[in-house]
């Protein structure tokens, strides 16, 4: 059967992958091409690249930059940030995006309907950023700066009705917190639309990802969580499998039987084991 997806989100600022904290603080991580290359090698089910400065700077997508990192992906690639019109969508698909994520321009004319008509609903993702306002949640556009007066459920329903095939829902409050997804926010959207919902914002360890999947998300996403160690995403999948969630894990290094700490990192092995590992020959797989 169709599996739940573990997707890596890459927030890109001025051409660099950054860590994002509460939509307000950012730390540099590295080049998008390298991140896309390694996340693919580690078994990402999907990669989502979001240009966070395009809309605030009033410009469209950086197509050359997208072409450069798209070459490194052998799994579905979603690209967002700065999409203004159908021309931007066409060009992104032409340079290698499989899907486009529309955020600021989500209610712009017939953009979603036109893009879905041309490439199919599965190529159009509605990207919705929201945070707690009063007793509920409100959607903000333009890098979280511009209030829309819409609830996430309303925004999601409108976008799906217009033709968006999926909803990428990001919690601004939980962004970079490592405290887990905002499940109340997640639930409000998952209950509102039949389309697949991808959750983002706050995941710090496999248990959080599991909660998101059990809440009904089709894909659980994380950004900062994957920046800290080699095989981070592979370890997260092993963590999910150990917790009982069926996910696809087919890298030739799969950490089966290896002890993980609750935060998803490798547990320290016995010193004798580590000593013995010095003499184990590991042959890199060639296809």
């Amino acid at each position, binding site marked *: 059967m169709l599996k739940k997806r573990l997707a890596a989100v890459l927030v890109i600022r001025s051409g660099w992958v950054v860590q994002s904290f509460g939509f307000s603080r950012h730390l540099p991580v590295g080049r998008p091409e390298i991140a896309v290359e390694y996340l693919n090698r580690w078994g990402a089910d999907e990669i989502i690249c979001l240009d966070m400065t395009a809309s605030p700077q009033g410009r469209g997508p950086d197509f050359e930059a997208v072409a450069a990192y798209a*070459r490194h992906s052998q799994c579905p690639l979603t690209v967002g940030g700065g999409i203004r019109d159908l021309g931007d969508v066409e060009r992104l698909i032409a340079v290698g995006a499989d899907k486009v994520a529309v955020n600021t321009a989500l209610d712009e004319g017939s953009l979603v309907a036109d893009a879905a008509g041309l490439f199919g609903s599965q190529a159009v993702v509605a990207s919705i950023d929201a945070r707690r306002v009063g007793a509920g949640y409100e959607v903000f556009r333009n890098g979280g700066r511009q209030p829309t007066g819409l609830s996430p459920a309303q925004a999601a329903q409108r976008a799906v009705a217009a033709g968006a095939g999926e909803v990428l829902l990001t919690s601004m409050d939980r962004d970079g917190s490592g405290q887990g997804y905002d499940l109340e926010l997640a639930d409000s959207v998952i209950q509102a639309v039949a389309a697949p919902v991808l959750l983002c914002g706050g995941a710090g360890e496999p248990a959080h990802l599991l909660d998101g999947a059990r809440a009904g998300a089709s894909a659980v996403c994380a950004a900062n969580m994957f920046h800290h160690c080699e095989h981070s995403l592979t370890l997260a999948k092993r963590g999910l499998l150990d917790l009982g969630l069926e996910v696809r894990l*087919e890298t030739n290094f799969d950490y089966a039987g290896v002890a993980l700490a609750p935060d998803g990192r490798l547990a320290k092995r016995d010193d004798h084991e580590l000593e013995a590992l010095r003499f184990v020959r590991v042959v890199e797989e060639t*296809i």
Partner: protein
Amino acid sequence: MNARDPFFHIVDYGIGNIASVRNVLDRLGTPCRVSADEADMARAVGVILPGVGAFAAAMDHLRRRGLVDALTRHVLQGGKPYLGICLGMQILARDSDEGGQAQGLGWIDSSVRRVPVPDGLSLPHVGWNSVWFDPDDPLFAGLAPGAHFYFDHSYCYASDPPETFCRCDYGVVFPAAVRRGNILGVQFHPEKSQRSGMKLLRNFTNFALQVAGAGNHA
């Protein structure tokens, strides 16, 4: 690429996503040419036909570029190894009921219809799903039954023709790959399926080079 190196022809008929297929072949170190030219098809050791979208539009594009004749000459009659991806597998069938009845190549005796999913499951079937095949099948060498591939489609083969050698379950079991001698079709996207996909594409290119080496192609 040396002018005499064996190469694969990726058919560009204005409707497929050729960039991803090309990227993977580049990664595998396999020369390829992307075009709608019959001359490339004639000289290639193998043909790859990708495609996402509507059946009728695809057949129309192929016909208008003279590619139906070219495929018939070199693949069906000439025995040149062919791998159709997604739509590229569907067009091997007799016809499809997508948007009215459209005629396919008719090389596999089946029709194409909307995947008859049970209640609770929606279309398109998009995401990673397991496929089931004989563990000794050469196209899946190096992979175990249950391996995951990326799917993105709303239509599938309506029946289980004898050429079916791989199946997938999305609430209903449907053919995920067909083989008629040198003619192969896969419903999933190996170019979007990371390691599994790369292995499958390597197995296909190895098969084509083997056929060429044995002098079995036109």
